[in-house]
């Protein structure tokens, strides 16, 4: 065994590289590099990787605004404990903050149309629908997290049942989203952001006025809130579907709808 090993080592050490053409060697290296490069560039990312990359391109002002809004709401509801019949202050805060939270993401969603990027984005591998879907998913999840924090804080402070608080939070949120989605479906330009802002202001005005209405937030009115919640949810789902269908419609009239498979 040892003699064989020694012999193998000697043979290996005395091995001489056969003569080769340096030009051919260079060519081989070039071809190998080209093949590696082609393989590197041929690889394509999946939707989830695309989603995580889109996170990086969401404007930092959106996150900052959400944090500032969330902290403001938490500060407002945590200043003191509320008895169940002293909730008017909390409902006023919800009326102002929740539509604003819903609105914050929409200029970011609309930016493709506002900045004239839609034509380039519409021709890429990930269609406009997937791009918009990615943005809405990211911003929607962020909104959901904020709402959960607000819900937990205000339910804990006030002692109001969590299910009722969900209604008081999500009805203005859904209504604002529905209005902004309707704008998104019909207005594909810079003006879309202004219209969404108008919807937000309108919702703030309506819900803050309602917060002064005696009995609107009482237990007896819960049935009405439940109806409002499910109606707004159904309308939200319908508008979301319609908005998605419209994303590939880049140029004005309804005739321009694309039928590209998802």
């Amino acid at each position: 065994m040892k003699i064989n090993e020694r012999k193998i080592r000697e043979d290996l050490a005395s091995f001489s590289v056969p003569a080769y053409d340096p030009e051919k060697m260079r060519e081989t290296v070039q071809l190998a590099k080209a093949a590696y490069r082609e393989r590197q560039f041929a690889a394509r990312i999946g939707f989830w990787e695309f989603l995580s990359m889109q996170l990086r391109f969401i404007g930092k002002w959106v996150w900052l605004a959400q944090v500032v809004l969330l902290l403001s709401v938490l500060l407002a509801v945590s200043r003191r404990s509320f008895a169940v019949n002293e909730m008017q202050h909390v409902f006023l805060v919800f009326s102002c903050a929740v539509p604003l939270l819903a609105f914050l993401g929409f200029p970011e969603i609309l930016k493709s149309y506002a900045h004239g990027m839609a034509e380039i984005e519409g021709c890429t591998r990930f269609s406009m629908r997937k791009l918009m879907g990615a943005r809405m998913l990211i911003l929607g999840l962020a909104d959901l997290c904020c709402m959960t924090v607000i819900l937990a804080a205000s339910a804990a402070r006030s002692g109001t049942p969590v299910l009722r608080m969900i209604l008081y939070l999500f009805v203005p949120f859904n209504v604002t989203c529905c209005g902004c989605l309707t704008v998104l479906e019909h207005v594909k330009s810079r003006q879309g952001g202004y219209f969404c802002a108008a919807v937000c202001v309108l919702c703030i005005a309506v819900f803050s006025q309602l917060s002064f209405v005696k009995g609107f937030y009482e237990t007896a009115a819960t049935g009405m809130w439940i109806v409002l919640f499910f109606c707004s949810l159904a309308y939200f789902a319908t508008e979301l579907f319609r908005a998605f269908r419209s994303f590939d419609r880049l140029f004005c009239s309804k005739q321009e709808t694309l039928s590209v498979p998802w």
Partner: protein
Amino acid sequence: MKMTLNRLTKRYKDKTAVDSLFAELTPGVYGLLGANGAGKTTLMRMVCGILNPTSGNVTLDGRDTLAMGEGYRDLLGYLPQDFGYYPVFTAMDYLMYVAALKGLTKRAAKVRANELLEIVSLQTVANKKIRAFSGGMRQRLGIAQALLNDPKILVLDEPTAGLDPKERVRFRNLISEISKDKIVLFSTHIVSDVEYIAGTILVMKDGRLIHQGKPDEITASINGYVWECRADPREAELLSAKYTVSNIRHEGNQDMLRIVSEEKPCENAVQVEPTLEDLYLYYFSEEAAQQEKEVS
């Protein structure tokens, strides 16, 4: 690879932008020549799949490109005539963003973005915000984004708009280099760009393809319609008012006119070899005059 534009038509309420256009494109460079409103941009948008035709379709090797969906868009690179950008993006951010939309991995995107920034001479301003760029720099960045995924089909709408002559020459050389095994379709008003780069010229007027062929083939269609003659300034003025003049050269106290006309414009006129510019004027002189009126 063969792309077929099958009787593409785009009709609006009061106008037919593209009218039953048929063409077969194989790898090579195609220059789309036409005046404003000829339907070039509408055609390109239909080729890219961002505008639905009223009738007809675009097929690639027999397959409908709309049905191919992301498989087709993966092969496509498009530079629109007017394109935007997100103001907060730097040149590198912009290319990385578009690369992500085109499905490139982060590593490949970074390598490719750096390569392209060097090719379009923007590597020194890679980390500068696009809003600080000049028009020519933005156009070069637009060309770079179209090339990110090494597309097999490259559609460029007025790619040389805003580029100075040096940049235009660089662009022509770039297109010539990359056009091997690709279908490159570009539209322009600048006749010299088409002349130098395009292997095949498609002439479009009022939504229709009126000519298709190699540059010398299509200029041959107006053989006998291009004249040169000498005239004194007063006569030159009269001839300019009556005929389409592609060039006036002052030689001492006489003017040498180059006229595009089916009839002999004056006694001493001699026929000369037509150029692509003469062809453009022959077909689009009314549109050119209209544009001049609007500008003045």
